[in-house]
């Protein structure tokens, strides 16, 4: 294990101050940082532990916005009644991370900072046009989550900056959302392909809005504009859904690795997209009343 100096601030203010002064790296739940440090895929000479900064562990509703603090754990997100009703895809995604032990420690902020293209929480957040809020000593800034995630393991975070929270707007009207993930085994499954979708229907059952986000099929989690275009303005029919599913291919660039092949990932992406859209549409149609 690498050698580092360790700080454990008691408050958000102190966390920001220490990061600014030391240029250190944040460790949250440790479920990515620790294995990656062991393999020298992540380096830190100063680690700043955020796990005592309780101000960052929250799930709140502010008007039509849901706000999730960076130190909220996957288990807390999976168990949250608010998330289950406002973004069931996100709740399902968080529940699918690893196992209980991982979910009790792993945090949303950590998942985002780690920026794995396989990160389970990201598709459901991108499908809701989530914004990420960053904080450093000089102040805060926000940007769309999609902009924040630049590449595998790469984000827009600058030295001294931390993730504060993530927000997304609740959907209204006849909306539905779903998330499906394909792993290599049923337990402790790392995503081979993961797809989240959200649709909003108008009273006539025509798709007013559609978001399709795919994980593990590109350097970052991506939205498929092509799939979304195939749906918006059309009746939510199986034909439209198939067209949308077929259209994701142009928007993804999967690789072959130890888990799977590029060809299979393309194949699975198309199928999961279709299934997730059908599930989301069914949910939305249930709200048409």
């Amino acid at each position, binding site marked *: 294990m690498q050698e580092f100096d360790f700080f454990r601030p008691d408050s958000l203010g102190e966390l920001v101050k220490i990061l600014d002064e030391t240029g250190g790296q944040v460790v949250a739940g440790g479920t990515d940082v620790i294995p990656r440090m062991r393999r020298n895929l992540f380096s830190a000479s100063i680690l700043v532990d955020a796990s005592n900064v309780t101000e960052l562990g929250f799930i709140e509703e502010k008007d039509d916005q849901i706000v999730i603090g960076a130190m909220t754990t996957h288990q807390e997100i999976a168990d949250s009644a608010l998330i289950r009703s406002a973004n069931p895809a996100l709740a399902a995604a968080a529940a699918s991370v690893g196992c209980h032990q991982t979910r009790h420690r792993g945090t949303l902020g950590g998942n985002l900072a780690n920026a794995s293209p396989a990160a389970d929480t990201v598709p459901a957040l991108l499908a809701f046009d989530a914004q990420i809020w960053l904080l450093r000593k000089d102040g805060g800034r926000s940007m769309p989550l999609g902009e924040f995630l630049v590449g595998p393991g790469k984000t827009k975070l600058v030295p001294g900056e931390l993730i504060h929270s993530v927000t997304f707007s609740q959907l209204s009207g006849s909306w539905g959302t779903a998330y499906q993930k394909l792993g290599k085994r049923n337990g402790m499954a790392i995503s081979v392909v993961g797809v989240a979708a959200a649709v909003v229907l108008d009273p006539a059952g025509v798709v007013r809005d559609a978001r399709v986000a795919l994980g593990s099929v590109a350097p970052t989690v991506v939205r498929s504009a092509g799939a979304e275009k195939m749906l918006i303005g059309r009746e939510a029919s199986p034909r439209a859904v198939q067209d949308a599913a077929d259209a994701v291919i142009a928007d993804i660039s999967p690789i072959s690795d130890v888990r799977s*092949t590029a060809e299979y990932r393309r194949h*699975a992406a198309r199928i999961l997209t279709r299934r997730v859209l059908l599930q989301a549409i069914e949910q939305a149609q249930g709200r048409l009343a």
Partner: protein
Amino acid sequence: MSESITLGKSEVRKDAWEKVTGAAEYVADIKLDDVLYGAVARSSVHHGRILSIDATAAQASPGVVRVLTAADIPGEHCFGGLVPDQPALAGDLVRHYGEPLAIVIATSKAAARKAAGLVKADVEPIAPLLDPVTALGTDVSKLHEVGNLISRYEIKEGDIEEGFAEADVILEETFSVPLVSPAYLETENSLACWNADGTLTVWVSSQHPFTDQLEIAATLGMPPEKVQVKSAVIGGAFGGKEDASLAILTALAAWAVKGTVRLVNTRQESFWAHPKRHPVQFQFKLGAKKDGTFMALKAVAHMDTGAFASLGPAVGVIVTETLGGSYRIPNVDLETYVAYTNAPLAGAVRGFGSPQSHFAIESMVDMLAAKLGLDPIEVRRKNILCEGDKMFTGVVVNNTANSLPVSLDRAQEACRKFAAIPPLPGKVAGVGMALVMQSMGLGAKVPDDSTQRLEWKPDGSLLVHLGAPDMGQGLAMAAEQIAAEAMELPYELVNTVGLDTSSSPNGNVSCASRMTYMVGNTMVEAAQKLKAQMLEQAARLLNRPQESLSYSNGHVVTAEGEKIAVKEVISRAADDGIILQSESTFSFPYPEATTPQHLPIGMPHVLFCFGAQAARVEVDPELGTVVVTHLTAIHDVGRVISKVGVEGQIEGGAAMGLGYALYESMDLKEDGRWVDSFTEYLIPTSKDVPTYHENIILEIPEESGPFGAKGIGEVTVPPTAPAIANAIYNAIGVRVKSLPITPEKLVKV
């Protein structure tokens, strides 16, 4: 049959209590003073010529006491289960990624590991050979003095050309199975202590402490009597701990610093450098009549034993013997090649060649049935070995083969039951089965004795001096139950002493599905001797003729029916300095009259475990994902000793077989490194094993076994993968001939 005392019951194993409280001491848990830590510097190339190993930076690193290389080894440089071709520390050649180059001994684990990373090996890379067929080609590097072929087996019976000529249909197929890790949870580790009197005490997590003793002694140039090996609690072995590497390295380290050293492998090192299940490439040609009768089998198997032989030649024997499965095939031409490559070494892993062959032959039988338009179960029924049949090895199967038709019937019933279950929406269901015939024992002409002692304590309890380690499977419990039964005493009164080479008898290696059988037989004989000793002592003390006394359930009974508790006799004998203890040695029987003598050493095996497994799968036809929903396992154990013990072996073995079928493969990645972590090497979790698991345990007594008992340790692994493969074919009509059966292989992309 009268009610047994303990046989067939589910007793609680005596070591369960320390295991559920965290008190059980595995090697890494043993608390000693002044322990130094070892870490092994390992090769990061697959193959190369070692020009130099520079330990200066490592030696200068904080906390480092000593760095050892091959030059520091006083005795034998190489060891090996069958062939001494494995250097304890690499000499002039690196033969696999992760091969040990040097040992660093330091005052802390962190210091040792850090320094191990500072050992600089100057290695001139040589292009690695990573495929057994290529390795046996012309114009390739020689990996060992003997070349790249370590063993070749050939069995020809009947007339193969005529057999194929008489066949109505001939099927030719190839199969391949990958490099697989036993993946026990406790990695290899050892703790060695140099004693002031010049002796060495070594704690091991090993299937063969007595072999470790000899290997350590040879490496250090010491007499074996000066090396004491003690068996710690073992966290799983499955064959992979029939390897003295860590014991030797730790002993070497302790000897070098004249102190106490503990060496614990990381999971990564376990993947790189310890015995795996052999990858095999098979070519099968099976000829049959249109009614399904097998006429001829020609098969060639290429086995990759990796950098060192380990138990490869012996695994090759069993691969060869199981190429024909449980069937009567009049004309065979079988060839097996065991080749060295630069892959991690392959050796003994549960099943020992049989899981590989069974995947091939049991898939082949279903494929043949499909070609003939026949029911695969009926095809099997037509061809299964019966009592009195002679196998192609010349061995005549005994009456326990009668469990084959019973297994087939139970499997058929299970398949019918499973087939009636409708699949979940969007899924396609299928059922499949496979038979299994797993040999017991080390094979003919391999000396195979196991000795145990049974001691009767003054309080009337029994102490089993078990000479072979319980690796977690419950051998001690089985020994205790058999001893209790034979001695007519309650199970609670029997305990087992920990294995220590300086005081335990030599029970031989815990392996080959023969421990219950061999140890059990020694318990039965030792019990008879003890009871005789009891009567002898009682006669002496009571001043009665021995013939007038009898023994029953912990009492000596006089002619008048008077009962004397054995405690009394033992205590009074102890006063006279007499200890009641008996020793028994059982030799695995290969009766000359019935054991063919013309085959190479280790061939043939003469005693078998039979069974079958039936599986139901649900396949997502679009994604190719497979869920095994139901599994029924049918296994004949001769006589159940421990009910939970047998069930545990079946449930665990089937899970291992399921992992083999669907998830497990030690691939070489694009970065040139092997898959070497549980992140990438996936073994089944609790969510991956079937939600329905049924055990059907048959008991056709094996005459030569203790109370009729046979083995169960390995037979539960081979049928699972072919049963699943057959079920997948039944579901979606896709036949996959290589393991693991991944979704990528099941869908057309």
